[in-house]
């Protein structure tokens, strides 16, 4: 089996192991990697090629041209609309641990000098789950792209809809999909990048609605959870099930792009779609 396809073993789904801060443990090959080396390698394991999960700021830092990013709606914060038991505390803890307000960072910037609106889901913040704020930020990002005649690029990494916001979270599927529909109607390009993991309600809305859909190698991409499916069909599923490679084989995505090539590939696609060049373009 290709090393891409081996499933990493997480003790906790959200934590990247970093003993002492100097060394990181690869959740797939279990080897210790010198932290500096991992950073140089864009958080891709130099031994087994595993693409470590990135936070939204890390993703923006490696994707956009330095200094080009201007954030939108940083002041949007979640409330606890249902009075859901434990939600307020979970939100507080996520804010404290990540230093961010919510599970999406949106804004405008350039990739290889091409201007684009970006929306990046933040897996470390409550599993990148989509509640009212994430839905609102993605919708506003699409609307800003529309107003400014810019492309939209989304990076998804999410467990799906945020169940602590109940049906309001479910309605974010409709809100984001409707916003993306307007981009299609106005013939503005929308590129969706699926990162590990992209599941549930995020796949069932904007992530699967791109003109083009890209994925990182080995990313988990699927609607229903593996365990639920195994219980339903009464047998075990192969390790390769619901990987980016599985999706490519079944015709669900356009291409798999390794992290060190993502920036160049996005630049090429943005150029192809005629994205406007920034005034002071810096070809990297």
């Amino acid at each position, binding site marked *: 089996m290709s090393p891409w396809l081996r499933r990493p073993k997480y003790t906790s789904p959200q934590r990247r192991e970093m003993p002492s801060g100097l060394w990181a443990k690869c959740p797939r090959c279990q080897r210790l990697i010198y932290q500096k080396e991992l950073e140089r390698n864009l958080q891709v394991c130099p031994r087994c090629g595993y693409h470590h999960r990135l936070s939204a700021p890390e993703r923006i830092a490696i994707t956009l041209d330095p200094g080009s990013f201007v954030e939108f709606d940083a002041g949007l*914060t979640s409330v606890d609309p249902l009075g859901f038991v434990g939600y307020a505390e979970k939100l507080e803890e996520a804010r404290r641990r990540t230093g961010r307000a919510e599970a999406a960072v949106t804004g405008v910037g350039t990739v290889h000098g091409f201007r684009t609106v970006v929306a990046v889901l933040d897996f470390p913040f409550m599993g990148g789950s989509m509640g009212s704020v994430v*839905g609102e930020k993605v919708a506003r990002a699409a609307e800003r792209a529309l107003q400014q005649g810019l492309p939209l690029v989304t990076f998804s990494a999410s467990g799906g809809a945020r169940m602590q*916001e109940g049906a309001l979270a479910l309605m974010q599927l*409709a809100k984001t999909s409707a916003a993306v529909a307007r981009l299609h109607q106005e013939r503005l390009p929308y590129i969706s990048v699926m990162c590990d993991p992209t599941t549930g*309600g995020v*796949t069932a809305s904007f992530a699967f*609605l791109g003109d083009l859909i890209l994925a990182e190698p080995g990313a988990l991409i699927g609607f229903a959870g593996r365990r639920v499916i195994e219980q339903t069909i009464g047998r075990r599923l192969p390790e390769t099930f619901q990987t980016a490679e599985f999706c490519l084989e079944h015709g669900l995505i356009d291409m798999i792009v390794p992290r060190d090539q993502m920036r160049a590939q996005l630049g090429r696609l943005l150029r192809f779609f005629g994205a406007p060049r920034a005034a002071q373009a810096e070809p990297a």
Partner: protein
Amino acid sequence: MAAEPLPTPQAGSPAAPRLSPWEVVQLARHPQRPKAPDFILGLVTDFVEVHGDRLFRDDPALLAGLGWFEGQPVAVVGPYKGRDTRENLAHNFGMPNPEGYRKALRVMKLAEKFGYPVLSFVDTPAAFPGDEAEERGQAQAIARNIMEMSTLRTPILVVITGEGGSGGALALGVGDAVLMLQHAIYTVIPPEGCAAILWRDASRAQEAAEALRLTAEDLAALGVVDEIVPEPEGGAHRDPDAAVGAVREPLHRHLMALREIPLERLPALRYERYRRMGRQVESLSRG
């Protein structure tokens, strides 16, 4: 927009005890509760079922067709939940595969072509969680329906009649007017799944049912549902014909209100409707 929402009707007699959310879940899933065929055959005359997504196969879990509602031609879609084991096995417990959603979309696009209103009767535990469903793009099929429904240039009227199970329900549930039966539920995740994830204990589904705010009353308060359709005393299963009949007047009233709106205006109004959904605060200090 749809007609003004009505105040929530009282359950049965004034002395009727208030049901717990978990009891409502049981009623919403009651095997004898009227199912999509009951609503369709009870409300739509000269119904002609159509089949197939033209891509893979016909999904028996999704009922779709054409007919007449109150003298008007309409397209109708709805997941087919059975009333007994035999029916359920034949129709996959009302859990569509991607081809089911694609069949529904085909019929909705057909409705758009001729300006027929779409009536969607939603009662599904979930989109089918199967390996082949994933291979054929369950998420993509749902996403596509949600997106296409948001721009469809014809009225869409949705009635949540039983279980509104997450994305699988929303894939048939984006509309200009969303009605919900009094003891139906509409939820982002089944209470059992929610309890299993949050507390690693599916037996705490009762608590999850409370927390999720999945009753018609809750959803009306959250602005997700426009009107609650009262059920016969004790629940729709006690008198299925009356439960089906109770949908006729509100559905017709909403349809007539939507008929007043030019077709090309509908998508913009629908956009606003979903655009408003959600709750958040905006602080200027950080923005």
